[in-house]
């Protein structure tokens, strides 16, 4: 989903050279990529630059952006506890989700690469299929399960079993957002993990087992370290996607667990404060790009260390 995963999956293939003359080949290559690159420059790069730029401007009563360049929007964001709290909540939800996804993802990824082909197919299907279902529909499913009244599935089950006497308040909380995000982005952890685990030389683990290492130590000393690149990619993906989400916190968090995405929406569609909305968007982009850069550095470092 991001550059990190692209790098891990698409090795360089300079060996595959079809055309002999480098000069014409270079031109053909550039020509083929040109339409896509132009499209991305016009509709992604330039608008993104403009958006970031407007975070450093102010807006007059008619909504026209004007200078001088100022940091006041950023100061306002970090100084107002209402807003900086949303930043903290966003980071906390994203970290929790990515961490839990790693915990849930390892067993699934191991089963995916080391089982009977039929089990592998079923697990792969169940893991990926919900990804193709709209986030709106999936969050709605969690609303039904976590519903606060006695008619929510979980409350109904616990009440009927006599475990609780009054319904729990599960929906519209950070926990609900973490559960929903985990459900939405789990495949983004499982797939990179499975691909890293699939590349581990089976003889290494066999040798360790033959030499008497218990299974948990084999996992700790061999499987885990060798699958770290997959874990890094998965963690980055789940963290960035959760940090940038809108639907899940809006449907499961309500006003109790607002994230940066909800704040951007509020500033732009309800308050029409473009500069401030742009400021929050820039903070979000900075977080996501920062996490991706760190992860890329880690992966590159490992690649260089390898013989």
């Amino acid at each position, binding site marked *: 989903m*991001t*550059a990190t995963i692209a790098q891990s999956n*698409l090795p360089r293939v300079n060996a*595959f050279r*079809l055309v002999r003359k*480098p000069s014409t*080949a*270079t031109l*053909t*290559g*550039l020509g*083929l*990529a040109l339409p*896509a*690159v132009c*499209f*991305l420059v016009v*509709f*992604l790069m330039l*608008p*993104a630059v403009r958006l970031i730029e407007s975070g450093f401007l102010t807006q007059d009563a008619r909504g026209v952006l004007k200078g001088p360049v100022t940091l006041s929007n950023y100061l306002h964001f970090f100084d107002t506890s209402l807003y900086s709290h949303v930043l903290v909540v966003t980071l906390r939800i994203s970290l929790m989700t990515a961490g839990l996804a790693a915990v*849930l993802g390892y067993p*699934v990824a191991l*089963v995916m*690469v*080391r*089982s009977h082909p039929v089990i592998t197919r079923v697990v792969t299907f*169940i*893991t*990926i299929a919900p990804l*193709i*279902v*709209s*986030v*709106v*529909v*999936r969050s709605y*499913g969690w609303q*039904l*399960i976590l*519903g606060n*009244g006695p*008619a929510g599935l979980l409350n*109904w089950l616990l009440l009927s079993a006599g475990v609780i006497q009054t319904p729990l308040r599960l929906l519209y909380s950070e926990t609900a957002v973490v559960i929903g995000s985990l459900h939405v982005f*789990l495949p983004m952890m499982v797939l990179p993990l499975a691909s890293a685990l*699939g590349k581990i030389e089976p003889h290494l683990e066999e040798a360790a087992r033959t030499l008497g290492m218990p*299974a948990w130590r084999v*996992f700790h000393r061999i499987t885990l370290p060798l699958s770290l690149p997959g874990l890094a990619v998965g963690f980055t993906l789940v963290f*960035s996607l959760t*940090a*940038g989400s809108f*639907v899940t916190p809006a449907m499961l968090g309500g006003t109790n667990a607002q994230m940066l*995405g909800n704040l*951007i*929406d509020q500033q732009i569609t309800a308050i029409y404060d473009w500069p401030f909305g*742009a400021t929050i*968007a820039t903070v*979000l*982009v900075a977080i996501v790009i920062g996490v*991706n850069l760190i992860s890329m550095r880690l992966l590159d470092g490992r690649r260089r260390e390898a013989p």
Partner: protein
Amino acid sequence: MNPRLSGGSAWLLYPLTAVTMIFVLAPLFVIVAMSISENPFAAFPPRGFTLAWYGRVLADADFRASLGFSALLAACATTGALLFGLPASFALARGEIVGRDALRLILLSPLIFPVLVIGVALLRLFSDWNSNSAPLNLLIGHILVTTPYVVRTVTASLLLADVSLEEAARTLGAGRWRVLRRVTLPQIAPGVAAGALFAFMVSFDNYPISMWLADAQNVPMPMLIYRQVASIFTPAVPATSTLMILFAFAVVLLMERLAGLRRAMAM
């Protein structure tokens, strides 16, 4: 061939995976169960059995309009993504170019930006340009978010295709165009088709771009459901959602048949 799980690790990992699979399927099952309940409120336990909600949904003018619009938008966006993405993938996988890494980064950049932020940036751009056609604006936004998926799948398929076949064809005197049409494309076709289906669903399911660019006349499916969930006067939400789930699962089965799911997603 990877070693199979056995002994203690199997006893631990299979049950854990089973629990996670139940977690993954639970919200979908719950929606399906609610869609056939006679109770007009989505409340547990479901009562009775009825397909009446489906009849209501399928007869609903808003549902039909949204479904048609979303399908058309996704089809056009996928076509656009293929037009931009196919040649770019050839450049990435086969072209002898400088700055391949930079090119890859540019082509996949829409995946790094939070989708929501892409939507805001486009809204700003279109309002500066006075571009008021919601369908056109949505199409541009959706091409933007689907193109990287096509690039990723097609590039992966190209890297898996056997280059020696292409070289053999060239040695035997086939022109470059003929090699492409008769040797390369047949090899990558299943991967491309599966990737295109995935791109179609990415557009069909998209909310965070559409929420900025849609207007009252053009409401994509996810936005319709989002609005219906927020309003208590639409008891047919579980039925509408179930139809979305069934459609998605049908597409996933097709993707699996065509190229295998992990190849279709290039992950």
